[in-house]
C-alpha cells in the first residue's frame, strides 16, 4: 500500500511539478528522530545539512504558498531554521500530543504571522498577494495552528522527493535511468530495452534493485528511528 502510494507520488513529482489536489493521508509521518536528536547539538554540521536538505524546499514552497515572495520566503525560512535550532534543545518529542510535522507547521505559521504583523498591510508600499487575505483571516483563528491539507500533502511529497534524491545519489545511474523510464514513466520493459538498447533482463534487474533501494530508503526516512512512532 505504502509502496503504491509512494510510486504514485514519485511519478507525479518526477513528471509534473504542479500541485494536484489529493486527499491527505491520515498517516502521521514520523520525522526521523535521530536527526531531531542530533539537531539539539547545533554544532553538528552534518545533521544540519541533512535537516536543511530535507525541509528547506518544503518550507520555501509552503511560505510561497502562504503568499510570500521568493526573497521573503528565503528570509523567513532562515528565521525558521534558526528558530528550530534554538528551540530543539528544549523540545520534548511527545508524539501523542504533537508530531514533528505539526510542530514544524505551527512554527511556520507563527513565523508567517509574525512576518505579516511586522510588515503590516501594504507596508513598504508592497501589495499583498490576492490570497493573503484568507491567510491573514485564518491567522487569527487558533485552529489555524493545526496543519492544513496542503501542508500534509507537501510534507508527504517532500519525503518522497527526499527518498528519490537519496536513491539517485546511491543507485547505479544506469539502473536508475532504466527504472525511471520504465517504472516511473510507465513504459513497458520491452520499450525500455529498445530505447536503451539493452537486454530486457537488464531492465528487470534495474527494476528489482532500484525498487529495493527505494523501499529501503523510504522505510529509513519514515522510521521513528528510536523515537516512538508518531
Amino acid at each position, binding site marked *: 500500500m505504502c509502496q503504491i502510494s509512494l510510486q504514485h507520488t514519485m511519478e507525479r513529482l*518526477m513528471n509534473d511539478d504542479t500541485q494536484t489536489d489529493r486527499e491527505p493521508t491520515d498517516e502521521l509521518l514520523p520525522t526521523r528522530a535521530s536527526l531531531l536528536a542530533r539537531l539539539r547539538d547545533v554544532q553538528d554540521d552534518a545533521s544540519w545539512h541533512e535537516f536543511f536538505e530535507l525541509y*528547506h*524546499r518544503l518550507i520555501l514552497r509552503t511560505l510561497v504558498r502562504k503568499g510570500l515572495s521568493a526573497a521573503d520566503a528565503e528570509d523567513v525560512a532562515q528565521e525558521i531554521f534558526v528558530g528550530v535550532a534554538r528551540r530543539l534543545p528544549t523540545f520534548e518529542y511527545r508524539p501523542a500530543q504533537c508530531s514533528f510535522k505539526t510542530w514544524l507547521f505551527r512554527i511556520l505559521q507563527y513565523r508567517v504571522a509574525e512576518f505579516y504583523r511586522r510588515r503590516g498591510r501594504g507596508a513598504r508600499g508592497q501589495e499583498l498577494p490576492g490570497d493573503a487575505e484568507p491567510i491573514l483571516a485564518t491567522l487569527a483563528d487558533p485552529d489555524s495552528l493545526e496543519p492544513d491539507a496542503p501542508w500534509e500533502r507537501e510534507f508527504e511529497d517532500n519525503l518522497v522527493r527526499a527518498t528519490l534524491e537519496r536513491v*539517485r*545519489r*546511491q*543507485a*547505479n*545511474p*544506469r539502473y*536508475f*535511468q532504466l527504472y*525511471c*523510464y520504465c517504472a516511473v*514513466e510507465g*513504459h513497458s520493459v520491452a*520499450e525500455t530495452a529498445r*530505447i*536503451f*538498447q539493452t537486454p530486457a533482463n537488464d531492465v528487470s534487474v534495474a527494476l528489482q534493485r532500484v525498487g529495493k533501494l527505494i523501499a529501503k530508503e523510504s522505510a529509513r526516512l519514515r522510521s521513528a528511528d528510536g523515537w516512538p512512532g508518531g
Partner: protein
Amino acid sequence: MAEFPQPTLPPGIPGYHLYRPIGAGAYGEVWLATDDVGRWWAVKITFPPRGGGEQSASREFRAIERYAPIGDQHANLVRIIAPAWLPHTGQFYYSMELADDATTKAPLPRCSTPEERAAVAAYYHPRTLRSELQRRSRFSPAECVECGLPLAMALGQLHSRGVIHRDIKPENIIYVAGQPKLADLGLVAEAGGQHSIAGTTAYLAPEPKRREPADIFALGVVLYELATGQPAERCPQVPAGIAQLGNMELSEWNELNAVILKACHPNPGLRHAGADELREELELLRNQGSVRQRRAQESFRRQLLDQRKNLLLAASAIILLVLAWSQWRQARLNERYAKLREIELEQFKPHYSTWSTNDLARLEVLGGGIADRAVLGRFVAALADWDAETRPVLTNEGVSIAFHPDGRALVGGITNRVCLLATNKPVSEFAASGPGVVAWDGDQPLQLTVLGNDLVLREADTTRIRRRFALPESLATNWYQSPVLAMAADQSWVAAAGAKHLLVWRVGDNQSLRELPTQATCLAFNEDNSRLAAGMADGVTRVYSIPDFNAPSNLVPATRAGAVECLAFCRDRLVRFDKIGAQPNWLLATGGRGAELIVWDLASCLQRMRAQGSWVITGLVFSPDGQLVISFGGDEPTVWDAATGAQVLHLRKNDPGKHTSLAFAPKGGYLLAGGPRANRPAVVNRFDLTQERGIRSLRGLVGKARLVWFSPDSLRVAALTDHCQLGFWDVRTGRLLQVFETPPGPFADTAGGCFDASGEHFNLAIGTNVVQFGVDTGGINRRWRVEKGEANQMAYDAAGRLLLLRGEEDIDHGMGTWRLYELKDDVQPKWTHEAGWTNQLPVALALPYGAKYFLVWDWSEDNPNRSVAVYDTATAKLLTNFPSDVRGWGLPVKVSSDGATIFIPSSHLGESRLVHFPDFAERRTPMDGLQAIGVEMHQSVHPGGIYLGASPAERDIPIPGNWGAVLTSAAFSLDGTNVAMPTLSGAVELINLPSLRTNLSNFNEVRRSLRTEFRVW
C-alpha cells in the same frame, strides 16, 4: 543584479580600466576591463575579507598563483595573469581572458576610443556554456562530444598538475574565440546566474571528499545537461522525447549516455579512472567507435583474467591445504611413532629387536588408525609368542657348530680356527688346518677336516689326528671346490661329497668306504645315525638308511625349483594310532634355491609341511622339541611352525650374511648361526628365543584345536584338534612332549577327556573309542569300546573311579539321553545310570573334577529355553534345575576347575549367574557390560577367583589363532595360574596369569591405542 554586493565605484586597478561588473562569485566580483592598449580582460577583484577572512584570502591568492602557469599550458584552460594584492584592503585581483560575447559569438572587438569601449561594454554578455544551453534546448551527441572532449583534456591537464577544479558547471565553462574553456575555481559566475545551494548540489559528487573523481562527476553532469537539455538535478533521467529518436540517433545517444553514466556514478571507484579515460572514450565516440562494445570486450578480458586468477588462487589454496594436511598428519604420525618408540624402549625391546624397520614403519601407520592386520597380528604375537633377540657373539665364519649337552658350543670356521664358546663368550681358540665339521666326543672337541689329500678326524684342542681317510682323486684335487663334509653325532660315520661322488666311512674301520654315485650339495646325519640325507643340485634329496645304504628314498618336491642347500633332521613326535610301538619316525626339512621349506615324513616319504619363502634358504634348524623350524638365507631369518607351516616370527639380523650352519642349544632357548661371508668378516650370531611375556604358543598340532585339558598337578596340558591329533606339552617349559593320532570321531569338540592323578596317563573318549594314552611312553595303555554317543565328559571321582558321561541326541524327536559309565581295567564298560529317552538334550554335559555331580542341558517342548539340570553322580538323582534363557546352541554351561561353581549362562552375559555347589547359592557374574563369548572359571565364587572373558571385538582382531572364536573351550589349570586356549591355527595359547598381569598393563596401553581391550578378572 540586486543580489550582488553593490560596488559603488569601479575600484582602482593599476593598468586597467574597469567598466562594469559582469559576474560575481562567493569571493568576489568580475569586472569587464580594458588594459592600457585597449585589450579586453575580465578582472576578478575579491571582496574585502571579513572577520577572520584574511587566511582564506591568502589561500585563494596562493591557489591562483599556482594555477596561473597551468592556464597558459592548455588551450582549453582559461589564461590568467598572475594575481596582485590591492594595497591596504586585503583584497587582490587578477585578470583573465574575456569570454566571447554571447550575442555575436565572437570576442569583443578592440576599440580605439573610450566611448566605443563603453558602448561595447554596455551590451557585452559573456558567452558561457550556460548561455549556449539557454539559447538552444540541447546539443546533439556529436556536439556534446566536440564540447566535452577539449574540456576533458583540460581537466586532465589540471589534474596532472595536482589541481582540482571543484566547481565545474556550465556557468564556469566559457567560450573564448569559439573554444570552450574551463574557467577557474568557480570564481566566474554569469551575472544573474543563480548561485544557490540547490544549483550547485546537482554537480556535487555524493562522496564527502571532493577529489579528482568529483570533477569527473561534475563534467559528466554537464554532459548530461548538454545531451538532454534537462536540469542537472534530474540526472540521469532521460527526457520523454527520446522515444522519437531514430535507430541511428538512439545508438549515438546511448553511446554518449554510457560515457555520462560512468562519469556520474555515485561510487567514485566506478567512475572513469581519470580525466584521460574520459577523454579516450570521448575520442572513441568522435571516431565513430563504440564505447559499449569496447567496455564489453574489456570486461570479457577482465573476466577471463579473473577466472585465471581465481583458478590459480584455488589451485594454490588446495595445494596449501594439502601441504598443511600432510604436515599435520606427519606431525601426528611422528607423535604416535615417538609414543610407540617409547613403549618399545621401555617394554617391548626384545620383540621389536626382531622386527625390521619396515615393520616399525607399518606399525606407525597402524598407530595412525589404519589397521594392518598382518602387523597387528604380529604385534600381538610379540606379546603372545616368542621373544627374539639377536646379537653377534663371535667373529668367525662358523661353518660348523656343535653343542655339548652342557651348553658349550664348538664353532669351526674356514680360517684355521676352532673356537669354544661357553654361553656367550669365546673361552678358547684352537688352531685348525682348514675348514671342517666339528663335533663332541664326550668332552673332547673334534674336527673333521681336509688335510692334504686326506680327510682327517682330529682332536681340536690337541691337534692329534685320530683317523685319516684317503680322499679319492676326484675329491682331493678339486681344491677350488671344497668337498661337502658331514659327521654323525657319535662320530661313527663320516661322509664327504664332491663333484661326482659321495663317500662314506665308518670311523671304526677306515676301510669301510662306500662310494655312492650321488652328486650331493649338502649332507646330514640324523641324531641316531640311522639316516644319511644328501641334497642334490636337481632339488631331489636322497635319504640312505645306515648302514646298508641301499635303495635310498628319493624325496622329490612337486616343483624342482633348484638345488637343495640345507637339510635338518628332527625326530617325529607324532605317534600314529595304527603304528603305535613301531620304529621312531624321522622328519627331514629341506631348503634351497627354490626358497621352499619342506618337511618330509621319512616313513612315508611324503611332505608333512611346506612353506614358501621368497628367497634362497641356506640354513635350517629345528627347535629341540620339533615345534619350530627356523630358516636362514636370503630372507630375514624366519621361524615357522613345523607342523602347520605358519610363519611365527621374523628374526632381525644385525648383518645381512646368509647363515648356513645352525645349531639349537640342547635345552632350547637360543641358537647359534654362522657361515662364511664374502668380502666381510663373518660373525656368529646368537638368536635368543624365549616366551616370557605371559602367553606361550604351544605348537605341534595340525588342524583346529578344539579342546584343552590340564593335568591335576597343572604341569601338563593336552589339546585335541579336529585333525584327530592329541598333543601334550610341559606347562613350565612349553616343550612338546608327544603327539598322538587318535581314533577318528565325529566331532573333536564332543570328545571327553581327563588326565589321571599323576598326569602320566590321559583318557580320551571319542566316537565309540575310549583310549588311555601313556604320555611319557608314547603308547596306549588301555582301550575300551562304547556304544554310539555324541557328547562325552570324563572324570575321576573321589574314589579313583574313572567315569564317562555320555550323551546322545535324537534329532528327529528333539530328545536325548545320557548314560554314565564306569570304566574299569580291561572290562568292557557298562553304564551304571541311564536317563532313558527324555526331553533332555545331552549336547552339553559337564562332569566336574571330583565328580560329585554332573550337569545336563534340559529342554522341554513347553519351554524352549534351556535349563541346567544337576544330578548326583552316585545316585543319578536330579538335585536341582536352573532355568536359563539360552535357546539352541548358546553359551555352554561351565563348571569351575575345582567344581565348586557352576556357570548358568544367559543369552546376555551380564545376566549370567554363578551357582555355588553344594548349597546352590546364586550370584551374578561380574561381567556386566561385556558381551563375552566365552567364559572359564577357576574357584570363581570368592573375590579372588579368576574369570576370563573376551568381547566380540576380539574376533575382529587377528590375534594369533583367533582366540575369540574358541574361547568357549578354554580351560583353567587347577592351580589357577594358567589358562589354555585352543586356537583355530592349531596352536594352544597358554596364558600364564601372574606373568600376564604384570605385562598386561603395558599390553592394554598398546591395545587401547589399537581400539580394543583384553580383560582378565
